[in-house]
């Protein structure tokens, strides 16, 4: 897989199903009705209470109707209470529906697979046909070109190119081979050429694809720790308001008649946090969905939440922070040689060099000196690189151009390196670069500095992470000096040089001991212990089975820099919950102003002064509050699915902004909303 992919261009899985997609909404509406079953709703205490109250008011309205009394008001309340419940289940259904289409295409990939079960490990000719679901752990199967790999497994023999589009959405085939870090294959992917012998490593029903299907469908969804805590808070508030409303029966009896049950029901439902109660699970599902569309699979919602809490990010140098291959980054001319002359010689010496290093020299010379590489001149002879000479170059009629390791060049030319150049070469090596000497006809012209290039923009990303309160740590096998140089250039906070798997594990344990949460990305088998130890372990899809098992997230694009986005998605999930909770609670202020005067104005007409919204009548006031309370759930569904925008500005600034928008906004919005609904009701003559 392409680890050089520029950041931010990782392929996104599928499209975000639009909120306005008709078939999706139709199906969600049906699901919403199905979710009304109290047995299912009881998981959500706030909405469950709303449903119980709705049933009660419906019965009372029916009773009034049967007695031939006026029941329009009660019926109106009952309808809107039911709609409140329905909007809440609808929000969840919409969130779930977005993952479903994707799950179906995955299921198709799984369903068709047939397996060629090998009878003996050493005989590829002898196999029996089996259904993919009949395979047991440890079975050996043969997969040939055109076959779908029947289940997850480890390649024990062979090399093949595999199209993993079914899992990653990326159609360019990748090479899979036995041994090493690319030996894992995923059920549902297709062998495009050659053949593989695979040992099955997943039990039926628990393959990567199965888990992925369950995940995108939300079937395996369990409440996350944070969600549970929030649920408790909401349940607690519901009980408090139940007490407050129930006590009104006694309190209001003191000087007049207690309000009717529908009115009390309306007060209760508007006060309890139905907005967040109705949207809570949709927020969670949407958060997972965002991750899936970002081509990252989390094994649990817990892992996504943990991502938001991460304090330390462990990133591999190669492929994550740097491009991972050496490129030209400077010319150091020998004394008495102009840099341009050196550049031109370097270009000629590299004309026949098709390696990335050679190309990078041409590119650098063009960028820096405008030296355009000429077409290979007539009569030129390319001197290829050999392990013996450790030199390559070009023979032209007017001279022999060579480039290569410094000592090889000086040896082959039989000249000494000038001391000033030797010093520069020494410096390049010390900083982790690779010096290449350039010579022409027995004269050393200078050196080219090759080095591992830090990806553009990564420094800014790290600065951004720092503002988020996250420390970045670069992990590399390089020596300390090299590591320090690259760390400084990339702007990481810390680095781990000459890192062994044990050191990585030790570093993670130490950070955790200090109360920090650690995230890391990895792909090799030797990364597995550290991936398992990290609070968030992002394994690469291209990695080994061991790594994929150890991590709690898998990146299908195998782009380790995505760890940064994963953290942002985790934060966004938590922020959305917090923001809508705050909004929901803040709404109560306006609802009091709408309903309390309406309820008590019969006993104390003077309490009408608290009807600051000047709502038309007690009935319309109560009904408007209930309607607002129901509609706000639908109105906020897009926000719940999209998530509140996160920007890395530091906790204090973020809190201030969100408090203003969702706290103060939550106080103000219902005043406007309820008033508008009241005007509308008055206009159409309902109340």
């Amino acid at each position, binding site marked *: 897989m392409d680890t050089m992919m520029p950041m931010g261009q990782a392929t996104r899985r599928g499209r975000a199903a639009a909120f306005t997609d008709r078939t999706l909404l139709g199906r969600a509406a049906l699901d919403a009705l199905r979710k009304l079953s109290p047995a299912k709703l009881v998981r959500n205490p706030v909405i469950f209470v709303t449903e119980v109250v709705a049933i009660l008011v419906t019965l009372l309205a029916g009773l009034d109707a049967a007695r031939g009394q006026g029941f329009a008001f009660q019926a109106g309340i009952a309808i809107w209470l039911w709609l409140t419940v329905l909007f809440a289940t609808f929000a969840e259904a919409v969130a779930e529906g977005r993952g479903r289409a994707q799950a179906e295409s995955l299921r198709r990939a799984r369903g068709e697979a047939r397996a060629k079960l090998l009878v003996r490990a050493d005989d590829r000719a002898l196999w029996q046909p089996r259904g993919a679901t009949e395979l047991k752990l440890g079975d050996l199967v043969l997969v040939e070109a055109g076959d779908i790999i029947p289940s997850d497994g480890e390649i024990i023999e062979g090399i093949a190119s595999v199209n993993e589009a079914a899992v990653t959405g990326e159609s360019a085939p990748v090479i899979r081979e036995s041994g090493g870090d690319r030996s894992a294959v995923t059920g549902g992917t297709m062998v495009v050429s050659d053949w593989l012998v695979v040992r099955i490593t997943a039990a039926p029903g628990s393959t990567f694809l199965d888990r992925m299907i369950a995940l995108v469908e939300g079937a395996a969804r369990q409440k996350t720790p944070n969600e549970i805590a*929030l649920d408790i808070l909401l349940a607690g508030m519901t009980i408090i308001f139940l007490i407050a*409303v129930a006590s009104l029966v006694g309190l209001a009896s*003191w000087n007049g008649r207690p309000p009717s049950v529908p009115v009390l029901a309306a007060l209760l439902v508007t006060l309890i946090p139905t907005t967040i109660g109705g949207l809570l699970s949709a927020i969670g599902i949407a958060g997972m969905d965002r991750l899936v569309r970002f081509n990252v699979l989390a094994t649990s919602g817990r892992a996504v939440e943990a991502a938001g809490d991460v304090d330390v990010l462990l990133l591999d140098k190669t492929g994550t922070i740097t491009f991972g291959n050496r490129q030209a980054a400077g010319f150091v001319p020998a004394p008495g040689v102009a840099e341009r002359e050196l550049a031109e010689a370097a270009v000629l010496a590299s004309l026949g060099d098709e390696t990335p290093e050679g190309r990078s020299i041409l590119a650098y010379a063009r960028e820096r000196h405008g030296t355009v590489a000429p077409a290979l001149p007539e009569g030129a002879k390319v001197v290829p690189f050999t392990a013996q000479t450790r030199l390559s170059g070009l023979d032209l009629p007017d001279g022999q151009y060579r480039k290569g390791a410094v000592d090889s060049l000086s040896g082959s030319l039989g000249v000494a390196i000038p001391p000033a150049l030797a010093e520069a070469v020494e410096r390049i090596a010390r900083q982790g670069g690779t010096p290449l000497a350039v010579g022409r006809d027995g004269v050393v012209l200078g050196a080219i500095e090759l080095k591992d290039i830090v990806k553009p923009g990564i420094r800014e990303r790290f600065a951004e992470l720092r503002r988020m309160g996250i420390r970045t740590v670069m992990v590399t096998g390089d020596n300390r000096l090299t590591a320090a140089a690259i760390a400084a250039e990339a702007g990481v906070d810390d680095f781990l040089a000459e890192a062994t798997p044990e050191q990585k594990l030790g570093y993670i344990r130490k950070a955790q001991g200090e109360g920090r949460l650690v995230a890391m990305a990895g792909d090799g088998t030797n990364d597995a212990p550290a991936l398992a130890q990290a609070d968030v372990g992002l394994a690469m899809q291209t990695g080994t089975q061991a790594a994929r098992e150890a991590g709690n997230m898998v990146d299908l694009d195998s782009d380790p820099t995505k760890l940064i986005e994963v953290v942002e998605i985790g934060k966004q999930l*938590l*922020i959305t919950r917090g923001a809508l909770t705050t909004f929901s609670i803040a709404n109560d202020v306006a609802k009091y102003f709408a309903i309390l005067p309406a309820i008590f104005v019969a006993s104390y007409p003077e309490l009408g002064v608290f009807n600051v919204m000047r709502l038309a009548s007690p009935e319309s006031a109560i009904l408007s509050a209930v309607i607002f309370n129901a509609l706000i759930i639908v109105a906020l569904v897009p926000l719940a699915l999209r998530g509140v925008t996160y920007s890395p500005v530091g*906790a204090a600034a973020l809190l201030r902004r969100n408090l203003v928008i969702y706290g103060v906004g939550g106080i103000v919005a219902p005043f406007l909303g309820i008033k508008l609904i009241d005007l509308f009701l008055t206009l159409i003559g309902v109340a």
Partner: protein
Amino acid sequence: MTLIGWAQIALVLACVVAAAVPLGRYMAAVAAGRVTFLAPVERVVYAAAGIDPRQAQGWRGYTLAMLAANAAGFLLLYALLRGQAVLPLNPQGLDGLTPWLAFNTAVSFVTNTNWQAYGGESALSYFSQMAGLTVQNFLSAATGMALALAVCRAFARSGVKDLGNFWSDLVRMTLYVLVPLSLLVGFAFVAMGMPQTLAPFAEATTLEGARQVIPLGPAAFQIAIKHLGTNGGGFFGMNSAHPFEGPTALTSALQIWSQQVIPFALALTFGAIVGDIRQGRALLLVMLAYVLAGTWAVYGSEAGGNPLHLALGIDAAQGNMEGKEVRFGQALVALFTATTTGASCGAVNAMFESFMPLGGLVPLFLIQLGEVLPGGVGSGLYGMLVFALLAVFVAGLMVGRTPEYLGKKVQAREVKLAMLAVLVLPAAILGFTAVALVLPAAVASIPATGPHGLSEMLYAYSSAAGNNGSAFGGITADTPWMDVTLGIAMMLGRFAYAVPVMAIAGSLAAKPRVAESVGSFPTHGPLFVGLLAGVILILGGLQFMPALALGPLAEHVSLLAGKTF
């Protein structure tokens, strides 16, 4: 409202804050065992009681010790009140209390409520006052402080069970804080003219030649601890409005100072124990803001006078002076009122029932907000910390991390326990009030009709459940129904709150302390102060709005419309 009035208020509060700063650090030192000048006395106490002060207690051990101490205190006090007729120091030859009244009174003083269903000078012997009530005044206050210290330690420690030792905290807080301060304030009160005597009541002949009995007693020192321990139970029935209990404006000011100084200082003790004084300062500022707001509301409402009187052409320069002592004036009454109800003290220097409806709403609402502003000694701090945890939980999510307070993650267990604690007040206050307002046996206790009657009943249960102890007045408190239900409300308010809080402490102490970063929720700045104040109002106050609308608010708007009840 006058400038002089506000200057008085500012001066008293400045003295409180000025004293709270060193006192807060001093109490942290006492809690840590770094203050030892009374070590010999401590040793005698420990030896006599058979206590090992170094034995570490987890939250269960600590809580059980607290409950055991309080149960013993309750039984002892109950027996004493019932049997005071045969006990010494009873020069007036008073009878023992009825079982109902003795239950109510014993609960009341054990829970630091000091609701007085009895008339102090006319029902209790000197012995009951000194050996019973005054002893409990110290113990209930020290109990609250000990619990608060345990909670503070829970934030400061990580990965442990040990929250300290209840017995040692109880003894040390009494010896090093309450007793010295009480002596200081008590002598000041004596110097200001309060009686401190064991002589029988004085008899006097009035100018008209009538014979008058003037109650006396060992008042000054009991009154000192009554305020310092935010107990509030007056020596005399009229409490701090009595000429012997609140002789001058200066004594009233000193009483306000005494009520506030320890609760405010404990906020800073919290900061000192967790190693970041700014955290304590933030809590203190929230408390101070509410005291000022409450004072402003009472002051404004009362100084404005009664519109019905104004309409009759009565000079309102003094404002509404009904039920107030001229020697204190509106400003000190307002500050005293906000203080005594915000601080869960319950002493009064004026009659709340005679306040304007909105003026009467303030003390009621301050109690209902959870007695955390600044709250009772100890109980105010741990109540405030419960709100802080909830504030951090709700708003903390908005910074995109699992909420944490002082590096402790706020998770399901803490939220559950915090909600259990927060549930206590609405359940006890609204539940009992709603029942009492329809139950004939209870309704008989209220002479008033209309919203005012509702306010009286609502206030009684608020005061009991909030462990405040002040009375709105007007209510007949000593009936079996009222004695028992108010007693239960007091127990719920104290122990049904404290036990979950201690469970939170146990849970927090066991957690690791997460490192802070710029991504962490800042809990020391103005933003958090505002947020916490808002959360107290919304989570602690909103549920009482319907009840308040039917009580003081209905009375207020009716009054404006010229209607009285």
